[in-house]
C-alpha cells in the first residue's frame, strides 16, 4: 500500500497551556554582560570568593571563544548584551514555604507541582527554580535524616562548600564549550544533590524550572553526587511563558557516580516552543554529562523533549569505572518550526563498559529533528559494548529527520550494534483507525505513543503518564 500524505497536513499548534506570566515584583539586573554582572550575581548569592574567581575565569575564557556552528539548527545571532542575567522575585531570605509569595505558589500550582508537604502521597521532593532563584525545596528534613542533601545550588555553595568545590566543573569543565562556559560565568541557581554511601534515596527528587521574567536568560546548574552504593532518581521539568522574543536557556548538569552507585536522570522539557509560525520560543542550549567514575556504576538519562524553539543537548556518559553502564533514552518532538539537534556521547574508558542508546525522533509540521550521537571506545576499554537504536517518525511532508551517528573504536574486542529506521504515519494507517471510530488526532497519538513506548518505559510511572499527555498536546492539530 502506498503511504502518501495527502490527508495529513501541516500542523496547527494548540495554545501552549503553560504560557501565562506571573504578576510578581521582580528584582531584575539590567541587561548586559561584563565582569560587574558576574560580581553582582555572585554577591546577590552571597558566594564564597573562590566561586567568584571560578566564574570570572570562565567569563574571561568565554571572551576568547566563538559560538559553535557545527550543529544542524539555524537561528539569528543571539545578542548576549541584550539579556538580563539575573531576575528574582522580590523577597529576601526564605525560611519556609509560608514566606513564599502566594502568587508564586499559585504559579506552581497551575503547573501541577505539589509544593506543599501535605501532598506527601506523591512521594516527590521538589526544588522549584523561578527565573534565577530557587523558591522552595520540599521534604528537606526528611531527606536530611538519611544524610541526603537536596537543596538549591546557591545554598549548597554556602553550606556545603567542600563538596561543591570538589565536584563543580569536574565533569563539565568551564572550558568545555561556548554555552557551558557562559553558564559557568553567569549561572544563577539550580539544584544540588548528594547521596551518601549506601543510601537509596526513598523518593523521586525533582526540580521544576520556570522562566518568568521577560528578556532574561536562565542559566541553572545542577550537580548530583552519588557516593558508593547509593541510588537516586531525579527528574526535572521546565516551562516558560509565551513571549514573542526568543529567550536563552543555557544549563549545565553534572553527575558523578562512584562505585556501584546508580543515577537515573529524567527530563521532561516543555519550554515554550514558539507559535505556529515559529515566532518566539526558548533557545535551549544545554550541556549534560555524567561521569561513571566507580566500578559497576550506572548512569541513565531519559529525556522527553517537546518544547523549545531550538533544542541543543547531548546528555552523555563517561564510562571510566570498569563494568560501568551508560544509558540514553530519548524522545524528541519537533512541531511547527521547532528545531532539535540532540543525542548523546558515550565514552568507553574502562573495561567491560556497556552503553545503550535509544533515540526516537518525531517530526511534524516544518519541524527539523536531528539525532547526533558519538560512541567512542578507547584503547583500554576491553570488552566494551554499545547498542544504538535510532528511529525517526515523520508526520506530514514538510518536516525533516536527520541522523549523524559517529563511531570511533580503538579496541578490537568492542562489540557495536547500530539500528536505525525512518517511518512515516501514512494516510492508510490514519484511515484504518478512522474506520474503527478513532479520530485522526487520536490515531496520531496512538501511533506516536506506540513509537515512543521503549522510552516511556524508562520514565518513573507518574511521569510516563505526564509525558504521554504532553506529547498528545504538542501534536494536537497535527493532522488536517
Amino acid at each position, binding site marked *: 500500500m502506498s503511504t502518501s500524505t495527502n490527508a495529513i497536513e501541516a500542523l496547527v499548534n494548540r495554545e501552549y497551556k503553560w504560557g501565562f506570566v506571573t504578576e510578581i515584583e521582580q528584582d531584575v539586573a539590567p541587561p548586559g554582560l561584563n565582569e560587574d554582572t558576574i560580581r553582582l550575581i555572585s554577591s546577590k548569592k552571597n558566594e564564597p570568593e573562590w566561586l567568584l574567581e571560578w566564574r570570572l575565569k570562565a567569563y574571561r575564557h568565554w571572551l576568547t571563544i566563538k559560538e559553535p556552528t557545527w550543529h544542524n539548527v539555524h537561528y539569528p545571532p543571539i545578542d548576549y548584551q541584550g539579556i538580563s542575567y539575573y531576575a528574582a522575585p522580590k523577597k529576601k531570605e526564605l525560611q519556609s514555604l509560608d514566606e513564599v509569595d502566594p502568587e508564586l505558589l499559585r504559579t506552581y500550582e497551575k503547573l501541577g507541582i505539589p509544593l506543599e508537604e501535605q501532598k506527601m502521597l506523591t512521594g516527590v521532593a521538589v526544588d522549584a527554580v523561578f527565573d534565577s532563584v530557587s523558591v522552595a525545596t520540599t521534604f528537606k528534613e526528611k531527606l536530611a535524616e538519611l544524610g541526603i542533601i537536596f537543596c538549591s545550588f546557591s545554598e549548597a555553595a554556602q553550606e556545603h562548600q567542600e563538596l561543591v568545590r570538589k565536584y563543580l566543573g569536574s565533569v563539565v569543565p568551564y572550558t568545555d564549550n561556548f554555552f557551558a562556559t557562559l553558564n559557568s560565568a553567569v549561572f544563577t541557581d539550580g539544584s544540588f544533590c548528594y547521596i551518601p554511601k549506601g543510601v537509596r534515596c526513598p523518593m523521586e527528587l525533582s526540580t521544576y524550572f520556570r522562566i518568568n521574567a521577560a528578556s532574561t536568560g536562565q542559566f541553572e546548574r545542577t550537580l548530583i553526587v552519588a557516593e558508593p552504593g547509593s541510588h537516586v532518581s531525579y527528574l526535572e521539568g521546565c516551562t516558560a511563558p509565551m513571549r514573542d522574543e526568543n529567550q536563552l536557556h543555557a544549563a549545565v548538569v553534572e553527575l558523578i557516580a562512584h562505585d556501584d552507585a546508580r543515577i537515573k536522570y529524567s527530563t521532561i522539557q516543555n519550554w515554550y516552543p514558539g507559535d505556529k509560525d515559529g515566532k518566539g520560543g526558548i533557545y535551549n542550549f544545554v550541556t549534560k554529562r555524567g561521569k561513571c567514575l566507580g566500578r559497576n556504576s550506572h548512569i541513565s538519562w531519559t529525556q522527553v523533549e517537546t518544547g523549545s524553539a531550538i533544542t541543543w543537548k547531548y546528555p552523555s556518559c563517561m564510562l571510566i569505572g570498569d563494568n560501568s553502564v551508560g544509558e540514553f533514552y530519548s524522545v524528541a518532538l519537533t512541531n511547527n518550526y521547532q528545531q532539535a539537534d540532540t543525542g548523546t556521547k558515550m565514552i568507553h574508558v574502562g573495561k567491560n563498559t556497556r552503553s545503550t542508546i535509544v533515540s526516537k525522533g518525531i517530526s511534524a509540521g516544518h519541524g527539523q529533528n536531528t539525532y547526533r550521537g558519538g560512541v567512542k571506545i578507547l584503547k583500554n576499554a576491553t570488552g566494551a559494548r554499545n547498542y544504538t537504536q535510532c528511529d525517526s517518525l515523520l508526520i506530514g511532508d514538510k518536516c525533516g529527520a536527520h541522523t549523524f551517528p559517529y563511531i570511533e573504536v580503538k579496541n578490537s574486542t568492542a562489540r557495536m550494534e547500530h539500528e536505525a529506521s525512518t517511518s512515516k504515519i501514512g494516510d492508510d494507517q490514519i484511515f*484504518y483507525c478512522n474506520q474503527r471510530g478513532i479520530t485522526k488526532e487520536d490515531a496520531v497519538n*496512538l501511533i506516536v505513543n*506506540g513509537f515512543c513506548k521503549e522510552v516511556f518505559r524508562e520514565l518513573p510511572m507518574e511521569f510516563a503518564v505526564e509525558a504521554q499527555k504532553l506529547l498528545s498536546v504538542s501534536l494536537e492539530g497535527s493532522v488536517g
Partner: protein
Amino acid sequence: MLEIKNLYVKAGNHEILKGVHLKVNAGEVHSIMGPNGSGKSTLAQVLAGRETYEVTRGEVLYEGKNLLEMAPEERACEGVFMAFQYPVEIPGVSSAQFLKAALNAIRRARGLEELDAMEFLALVKQKFKVLGVDEKLLHRSVNEGFSGGEKKRNEIFQMALLEPRLCILDETDSGLDIDALKIVASGVNGLRSPGRAILVITHYQRLLNYIIPDYVHVLVEGRIVRSGGKELALELEEKGYALIEGGAGAAAPGRR
C-alpha cells in the same frame, strides 16, 4: 438502512462508478460481484469515507442520513464497518490498545460508558472464544507480521467486537485457503441478525457457498448490470462475467 442513488465516483481523472443504485434493508445480506476493475472496492471505500475518491453525483443515505457528509470516524461510530481487503499494519501499537481506543470511541458516540482495562479484557476474551482467535494477538502490533489469513480473521474479529449495523466485507476471501475461508465465513454468519445488514464484495462465488446472500448484484464497468437471488452467483461462476449482458469486464484494466 442503506440507499445508494445514482452514484458517480472519480479517482483523479478516472471515472470509476457511473450511476450505481442499491438499496439494502436491515437483516439482509447482499453480495456485490464483479470482475477486476469494475469498481467494487471503490464502492466499499466510498461508503467507508476514503478521501482519495471524489463523488461527482448522486447520494448515499444511511439510516435516512446523508452518509457522504460524515467523516469516516463518524460513520464508524454510527455503525458502518468495513473489513479491509488489505488490513493496514500499525507497528508499535498493540492490538489491545487499538481495539480499546476503537471500542471506547464508538461506545462514547453511542452514549455508553467507556470500558476500563479489566472490562475490556473480559469482553475481548469472550469474543475471542467465539471466533477461536488466539489471545496472544492482543499483545502483537496491529496486523504487523500477521499472515494473510490472520489479518482477515482479525478484521472479522474487530467486526464482532464493535457490533456495527452495516458491515462491508471488501474481498475478505482474497488470499484465503479453504480452512481460513470457512472460519471467516462462520464468523460472519454468526453476526447475521435482523438489525444488521451485510454487504459482501467478492470476485469469486466461492465465499457465497458459506455466506449465503439474499441478493446478488453484478457490477460491471461502474454500473450494476444485473441483480438477482443467490442463484445468480452460480450462474456467474458457470458463464463468467464476460457473458453477462453489457459486460466487457474481462478486458477492463486491472485494479485492486
